[in-house]
């Protein structure tokens, strides 16, 4: 059975050959522990690691020493949120927030450390800023924005939110889990204090590596403590970034793969990537009407389309698609608040997410199977 992979919002697949080769090469040529010695293999590892920092920082408008490698976007978000707030702070988060945002925020709230409220990002940008203004309190210190939802293609205006945060003296955390490698985003230009992303989605790398890019002003405490390769006799974590936030041994194979992925994305260009994804999305949505009693949920422009059937449940549709080799995701996609916002909180949706590597034949195949399912 040949596979049609339409679950890129969960993780990119197949990984491009240069990405896989980069990971293997890293372990062959640079298998030492970066920053933990000065022998040839450790040096090679440290140089590769710094190159990855430098190029990631350049691509996302950051600086190399404030580009932190983490185990993933969830870890980046937890570090940014829990590491930057202080007791008594008030946090604002949008109503498309993923659990990687929602749960750390609600844990802080439950522990009595912070207060937090959602703002409405579902009714256009003007309404978003009205909602933000309304939700502000004298204790508000942080705004978190889902750059692009993982349920529908809603894309929040990060630059304007960044400006709003600067004007109000607030920290700005951007969740770029779905946008990195698809949409332009920059720490410097968008006024972001903490930009969080995975390496294995739009950046095409292997799982196990995420990024946290901090602004020059951001001060972030670590979540995890341990060896940093420097200042070993100090009882606490060093103040120096990125070491302060990178305890333990880094996953160099995964980091090397992300570096290769960033180079691929840059070579192809974000405009070209978006154009291809949106073309596939349009093709899919235009064919969906003829496939049966389906409807889309929320916006349909972008690489993620959520759909529902008049009678059949999302899980059932997903299982039938899976039996025919078509990979999609169903349910809440770890974003229950987004489903509440979109009115799909009962069973969630079927999420079809495209990549520039998909083809018109992939779309034809899923539409044909959806038609069969409708007639089931």
């Amino acid at each position: 059975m040949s596979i049609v992979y339409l679950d890129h919002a969960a993780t990119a697949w197949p990984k491009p050959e240069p990405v896989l080769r980069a990971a293997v090469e890293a372990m062959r040529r640079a298998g030492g522990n970066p920053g933990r010695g000065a022998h040839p293999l450790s040096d090679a590892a440290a140089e590769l690691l710094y190159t990855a920092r430098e190029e990631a920082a350049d691509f996302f408008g950051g600086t190399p020493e404030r580009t932190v490698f983490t185990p993933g976007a969830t870890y980046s978000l937890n570090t940014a949120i829990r590491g930057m707030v202080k007791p008594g702070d008030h946090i604002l988060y949008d109503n498309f927030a993923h659990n990687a945002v929602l749960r750390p925020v609600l844990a802080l709230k439950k522990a009595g450390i912070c207060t937090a409220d959602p703002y409405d990002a579902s009714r256009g940008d003007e309404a978003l800023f009205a909602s933000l203004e309304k939700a502000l309190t004298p204790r508000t210190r942080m705004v978190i924005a889902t750059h692009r939802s993982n349920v529908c293609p809603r894309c929040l205006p990060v630059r304007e939110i960044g400006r709003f945060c600067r004007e109000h003296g607030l920290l700005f955390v951007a969740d770029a889990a779905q946008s990195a490698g698809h949409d332009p985003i920059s720490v410097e230009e968008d006024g972001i204090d903490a930009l969080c992303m995975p390496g294995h989605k739009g950046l095409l790398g292997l799982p196990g590596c995420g990024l946290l890019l901090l602004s020059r002003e951001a001060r972030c405490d670590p979540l995890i403590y341990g060896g940093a390769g420097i200042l070993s006799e100090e009882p606490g974590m060093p103040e120096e970034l990125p070491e302060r936030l990178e305890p333990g041994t880094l996953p160099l194979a995964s980091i090397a793969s992300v570096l290769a992925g960033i180079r691929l994305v840059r070579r192809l260009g974000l405009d070209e990537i978006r154009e291809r994804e949106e073309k596939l999305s349009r093709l899919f949505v235009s064919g969906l009407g003829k496939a049966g009693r389906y409807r889309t949920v929320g916006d349909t422009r972008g690489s993620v389309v959520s759909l529902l059937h008049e009678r059949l449940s999302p899980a059932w549709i997903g299982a039938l698609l899976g039996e025919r080799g078509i990979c999609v995701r169903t349910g809440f996609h770890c974003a229950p608040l987004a489903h509440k916002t979109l009115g799909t909180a009962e069973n969630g949706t079927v999420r079809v997410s495209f990549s520039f590597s998909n083809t018109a034949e992939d779309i034809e195949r899923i539409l044909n199977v959806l038609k069969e399912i409708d007639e089931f």
Partner: protein
Amino acid sequence: MQDCIITVKSRTAAERGRRSYPQSGATVVSLDPGVTRHGCSFGLRLPCRNVGRMKAELDRMGIPYGEVIGGYGAG
């Protein structure tokens, strides 16, 4: 020709410094914990004649550095 070592706190800072002045001939070296009295640290080993320019580059990049240790290598 004698080499000197400019001490810096981290491998990242050392690598950043080295790349900011590639003509300096600097290499990154690991230092004995006793050198900084705070544990492991790193240094930029380079010909002593390039120390002034490298320090200027480190200042320009905002990279903190510590003492300069001289007298390495054959004369």
